[in-house]
């Protein structure tokens, strides 16, 4: 009579125990459902990287029709909301300094006269660029506005003053997200981030909880193998991961009209790999953590770089090489690419494969480490 290498009965017993314990832990259950919904609502409604209607001050020292046409043009871009009219430059600077306005538009005296004389008068827009994300959209819109206004205003005898047409016509096509909605980008990334956050922490807690309550000693004294414990402990959280992912996709689709172009089956298949990666990380951390507080701290340490360096909040390509290397090690980075690919671009297996295989490699490696680090004794 020897102890078999893997017993489904033992793994199932652990699994059943975890489900029963989870069912009785109503606080955790509520968190599991509320975290994705809360985050989604916050990110979906509150976060916008292309803000419009920004407060603007205009000092116009020329009341000519063309000067007014420029101000109207700025308004029409939707980026500028002209609600301050300071009387002096000093007052305008103060407004910018205080943060009352993000832009100060100055139209010099004799603007129209100089324009008609061909003296290239200067139209000045000062922007509070301390937050580049807030102002960059508005500034590029201001550039485009210029051509349009000149084309409309310089008619008849003034036509020769129009700027020469460029020999090449530039056409921009914003594929997959024509309106440039930030939430389209955020939601698929949010699946990865929420699963990383809750997945790693819940698994790490599941093991350290046993150690803290003293039940680990009992478990180790019984004939159960590490792989059985791992399978039994992880499976409930894989199910939870799926529930969370389903909530996110459903809410995103219903509330924010985020397109679901690709195959949800493919998303589900890659989700299994991604969730397992996170669980194995949590399992590994739990081997190092002595108690639940430490487990939570360690989970934070792993989760934070996933949020920062995965391309969830900031463009991945904008990061320096070394940061991209770190980012590429993290499963969240690859899964964000996968979920954006499937949901927004309708990518198939062939397109997402470059991000699937790193996940598979990571899963195999981290599972091995988790098994190795699992303590069979109390040493």
């Amino acid at each position, binding site marked *: *009579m*020897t*102890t078999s290498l893997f*017993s489904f*009965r*033992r793994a*199932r*017993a652990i699994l*059943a*125990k975890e489900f*029963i*314990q989870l069912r*009785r*832990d109503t606080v955790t259950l509520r968190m599991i459902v509320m975290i994705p919904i809360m985050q989604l609502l916050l990110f979906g409604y509150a976060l916008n990287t292309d803000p419009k209607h920004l407060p603007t001050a205009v000092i116009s020292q020329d009341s000519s029709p063309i000067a007014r046409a420029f101000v109207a043009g700025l308004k029409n871009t939707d980026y500028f909301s002209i609600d301050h009219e300071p009387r002096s430059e000093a007052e305008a600077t103060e407004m910018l300094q205080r943060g009352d306005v993000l832009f100060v538009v100055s139209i010099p005296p004799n603007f129209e006269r100089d324009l008609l004389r061909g003296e290239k008068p200067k139209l000045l827009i000062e922007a509070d660029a301390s937050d580049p994300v807030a102002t960059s959209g508005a500034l590029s819109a201001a550039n485009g506005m210029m051509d349009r206004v000149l084309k409309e205003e310089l008619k008849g005898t003034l036509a020769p003053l129009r700027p020469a047409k460029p020999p090449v016509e530039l056409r921009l096509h914003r594929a997959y997200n024509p309106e440039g909605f930030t939430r389209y980008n955020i939601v698929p990334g949010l699946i990865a981030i929420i699963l990383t956050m809750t997945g790693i922490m819940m698994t790490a807690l599941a093991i350290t909880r046993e150690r803290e*309550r*003293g*039940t680990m*000693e*009992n478990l*180790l*004294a*019984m*004939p*159960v193998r590490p792989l059985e414990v791992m399978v039994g402990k992880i499976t409930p959280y894989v199910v939870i991961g799926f529930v969370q992912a389903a909530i996110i996709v459903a809410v995103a689709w219903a509330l924010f009209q985020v397109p679901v172009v690709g195959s949800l089956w493919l998303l589900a298949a890659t989700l299994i790999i991604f969730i397992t990666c996170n669980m194995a990380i949590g399992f590994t951390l739990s081997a190092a953590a002595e108690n639940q507080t430490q487990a939570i701290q360690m989970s934070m340490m792993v989760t934070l770089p996933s949020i920062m360096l995965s391309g969830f909040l900031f463009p991945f390509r904008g990061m320096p090489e070394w940061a991209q290397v770190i980012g590429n090690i993290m499963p969240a980075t690859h899964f964000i690419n996968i979920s954006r690919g499937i949901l927004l671009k309708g990518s198939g297996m062939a397109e997402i494969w470059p991000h699937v295989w790193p996940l598979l490699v990571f899963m195999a490696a981290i599972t091995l480490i988790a098994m190795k680090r699992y303590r*069979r*004794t*109390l*040493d």
Partner: protein
Amino acid sequence: MMTAAPDNVIDVRGLTKSFGGRKVVDSFDVQVPRGRIYGFLGPNGSGKTTTLRMICGLLTPDAGEGTCLGFDIVEEAAEVKRRIGYMTQKFSFWEDLSIRENLEFVADLYGLDRRKERVDTALQNLNLVDRQKQLAGQLSGGWKQRLALAACILHEPELLLLDEPTAGVDPKARREFWDEIHRLAAEGLTVLVSTHYMDEAERCHAIIYMSYGRLVTQGTVKDVIRGAGLSTWVVRGQNLMPLARELEAEKAVKTVAPFGDNLHVSGTDKQALEAALKPYFNREGLSWHEAEPSFEDIFIRYMADAQDNFKGAENGNEGDAA
């Protein structure tokens, strides 16, 4: 390998284990024959729990070797685990599972057949059929201990290791617990049980006394008392505490312990003790008589000895050695 019923269920030699440079168990030998109940005694932090954990494969010894039920305690820990029941010092079943769920979980981990039948029987024996759906965490100390024992013997182990099983349990529950242990031993189960209670030690077939990681003495309670070579005088009277302080100053007196209205005065040299006590015999209001030393006198003497021996070497904390 499977050997046919070895004489000694536990047979370990030279077990040594250190934590943070401190030797908690130091070349410890112990043999426990089949079907016997061995009591495991010693002060807090003497290494009893660590020894039990090494025997059941929860800790890897730094040195030493041995077998448990014929299996190597290091190489064949998995085989050992299947055949023994280990009851931890602190209640270590799942408080957020019901009584029944705990038993079913244990049955599954040991791969037991007839799960429902076994669990039902265990619940009947425990008298917990009506409360089987109650969460284990809601049970009182005595009931928790009974549940833990029931769970430990569910797979019909050949050896039971019990780590202070009756700490914090009322006398009636303790009595019932020991009746159960003796019933199991009669059926051929071997038991090694650590305890601080003298009456429990006297219920064992033999005792092992451990102090500061070393074996001090072992044998039947009678043997141990005789082997200690202790003589004891009992004095009865009023206002004994000042007398106790006086007696402690005598060289021939090893220990002075109050027992209600009595003082137990013990020494290792019978003649010297008598000579030292003689001046006190005629004091007013005191009545003296020589007595068989109780097991507790022996126990206190060993503790005092060990403390003397280690006072120099041991500076600072004598924590509970896990």
